[in-house]
C-alpha cells in the first residue's frame, strides 16, 4: 500500500476524498436533480407527469412571494441581532474571561444540548399571555392591557435569533481567539488607543468569523419553519412553512419542489451579493 502510494503520489488526494465525495454526490447532488425533475412535473398526487411545467415556478412566485420576502426579512433581522448579541460576549470570552474561557464557551453551545423543538417550546412558556414577561411589560405599559408577545412577529424573530445564536458566536470566537495578543500590544506600543486598536486590528482580523457566522446564521434562518409554526400565526408564515405543508400535507410535490428551488436560488443570489461585498476567498475559507 505504502509503496503503491509512493509510486502514484497524485492518487492520494483522490483516495482521501472519494468516500466523502461519493456520499455527497449520491445523497446531495443527485437528489437535487430529482428535485429539479419533480419541480417541472404536473398532475395531482399520486400521478405526476414530467411536462417541462415551468409555470410551476411563476405560479409559485406569484402565490408565495409574500412568504418568501418575509423569510428573508426575518432571517436578516435575526442575523443582525445575533451579531450584536454575540460579538461583545465572544470578545469578552476571548480576551477577558481568562481561565473561565472554556466554561463560557460551553454556555454558548449549551442551548444546542436542549433539543431544538423543546427550547423553542420553552419560549412558549416565557412569552405566554399569563407568563412573567407579558405581565411585566403590561405593568410598565410597554404592552397594552391585552397586548401579547406570543403569536407576534417579535416572538418568531426572537425565536429564530435564539435558536441560531451559536452558529454566529462559534465562528466569531474561533477568529477572535486566533488573534495574537502581541499584535494588540504592538498597536498600543505604536500609540493606538484601545478603540483604534480594536477598529484597526481586532475587527479586521475577526472579519472571517463575522462572514462565516453571518452565513451560518442567515441560511438556516431563511429556511426555518419551526419558529413561525410554534411561536407565530399564519400571518408570520415563512417560505419553509409553505414548502413543508405542500410536501408533507397537501402532497403537491411539484409546487413544493419549485418553491425549494426558488428559496435556494434566492439564497445563492444573496450569497453572491455578499461574496462580492466581502471577497470570495473569505467565503469558502
Amino acid at each position, binding site marked *: 500500500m505504502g509503496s503503491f502510494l509512493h509510486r502514484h503520489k497524485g492518487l492520494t488526494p483522490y483516495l482521501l476524498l472519494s468516500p466523502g465525495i461519493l456520499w455527497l454526490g449520491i445523497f*446531495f447532488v443527485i437528489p437535487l436533480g430529482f428535485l429539479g425533475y419533480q419541480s417541472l412535473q404536473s398532475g395531482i398526487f399520486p400521478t405526476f407527469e414530467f411536462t417541462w411545467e415551468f409555470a410551476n415556478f411563476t405560479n409559485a412566485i406569484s402565490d408565495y412571494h409574500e412568504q418568501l420576502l418575509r423569510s428573508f426579512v426575518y432571517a436578516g433581522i435575526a442575523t443582525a441581532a445575533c451579531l450584536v448579541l454575540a460579538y461583545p460576549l465572544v470578545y469578552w470570552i476571548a480576551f477577558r474571561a481568562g481561565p473561565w474561557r*472554556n466554561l463560557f464557551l460551553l454556555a454558548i453551545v449549551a442551548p444546542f444540548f436542549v*433539543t431544538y*423543538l423543546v427550547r423553542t417550546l420553552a419560549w412558549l*412558556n416565557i412569552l405566554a399571555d399569563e407568563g412573567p414577561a407579558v405581565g411585566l411589560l403590561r405593568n410598565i405599559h410597554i404592552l397594552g392591557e391585552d397586548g401579547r408577545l406570543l403569536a407576534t412577529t417579535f416572538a418568531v424573530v426572537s425565536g429564530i435569533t435564539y435558536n441560531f445564536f451559536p452558529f454566529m458566536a462559534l465562528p466569531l470566537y474561533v477568529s477572535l481567539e486566533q488573534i495574537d495578543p502581541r499584535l494588540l500590544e504592538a498597536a498600543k506600543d505604536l500609540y493606538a488607543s484601545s478603540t483604534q486598536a480594536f477598529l484597526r486590528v481586532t475587527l479586521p482580523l475577526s472579519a472571517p468569523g463575522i462572514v462565516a457566522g453571518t452565513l451560518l446564521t442567515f441560511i438556516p434562518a431563511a429556511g426555518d419553519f419551526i419558529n413561525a409554526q410554534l411561536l407565530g400565526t399564519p400571518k408570520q408564515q415563512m417560505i419553509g412553512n409553505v414548502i413543508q405543508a405542500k410536501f408533507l400535507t397537501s402532497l403537491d410535490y411539484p409546487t413544493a419542489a419549485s418553491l425549494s428551488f426558488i428559496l435556494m436560488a434566492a439564497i445563492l443570489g444573496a450569497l453572491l451579493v455578499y461574496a462580492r461585498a466581502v471577497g470570495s476567498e473569505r467565503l469558502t475559507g
Partner: protein
Amino acid sequence: MTAVAQTMQPRSRPGVGVRVWSFARRHALTVYALLVVGYLMLPIAVVILFSFNDPKGRFNYIWEGFTFDNWIEWDSVLGLRDAVVLSLEIGLLATLIATALGTLMALGIVRHQFRGRGATNILVFLPMSTPEIVLGASLLTLFLNMTSVFALGFWTIFIAHVMFIVSFIVVTVKARLIGFDRHLEEAAMDLGANEWTTFRKVTLPLLAPGMVAAALLGFALSIDDFVITYFNSGGDQTFPVFVWGIARVAVPPQVNVVASAIFLIAIALALANVFSQYRSAKRTQGAT
C-alpha cells in the same frame, strides 16, 4: 493601608481617571456578556423547571406545583422511549461515519494540490449553504423515486444525517489543519519516521482535538435535527420528530424530562472535558 493609599495617590493621580474609565468599561463589557449568557440560559432553565411542573390540565405552560413524578415515570408517554433510543443510535452511528469521511476529506483538501480542488471545496460548502428544508425535501424525492432501493426509516435517516453532518466535520477539521505547524512533521521525518509513523505519532495527536470537536458538533447536530429527519423518517420517530407530533396536541412534562436529561448528561460530559483541559493546561504550565 489608608496611609499608603494617601501617599500613593498624588503620584498616580494622572493615571487614576484613565484607570477608572477603563475599569468601568471593562465592567460594562462584563455585565453585557453576563446578560447575554443569562439570555442563553433562560429557556434552558425553563425547560428544566417545567420538567418538575404538575400541570392540572393537558397544557404544561403555567407553573402549577412541584413534583418528581414526571422524572420517575418518564416513559409513561407512549412512544417516547423508542424515540429517544432511535435518536441516540442514529446520532452515534452517523457521527462515527461522518467524522471518518470528513477528516479524510479535510486532509485531502488541505494537504494536496490536485485537479478539482475548487470543485471539491464547493461540494463541501454547498450542503451548508443549502437550507435544511431543501436538503430534506430533495433527499425525499430521491427516496420516493427509488422506493425499491430505499424504504423510509432507520437507514434513510442515517444516510441523511451523515450527508448533512459531513460538511461541518470537514470545515472544523480543516480549520485545525490550516493552523497546523508542518515543521513538526518535517522534524519527525528528519528524525527517520516514515509517513505512516509521522501521521500516527505527530499528525493524528495534533489533529485529535479538532476531530473530537468536530464529532461533538456532529453528534449535537444529529440528535438535534428535526427538519431533515422529519422529511425522511417515514413512520419512525426520533425524539425531535416525536416532540413535533405531540406539540400539535399538548406537550407532556415528560418531554421536558427527556430534554433536561439529555442536556444534563451532555453538560456533565462537557464540564468534565473543560475541567480536564484546565488541569492539563495547569500541568503544562507547571512543567515549563
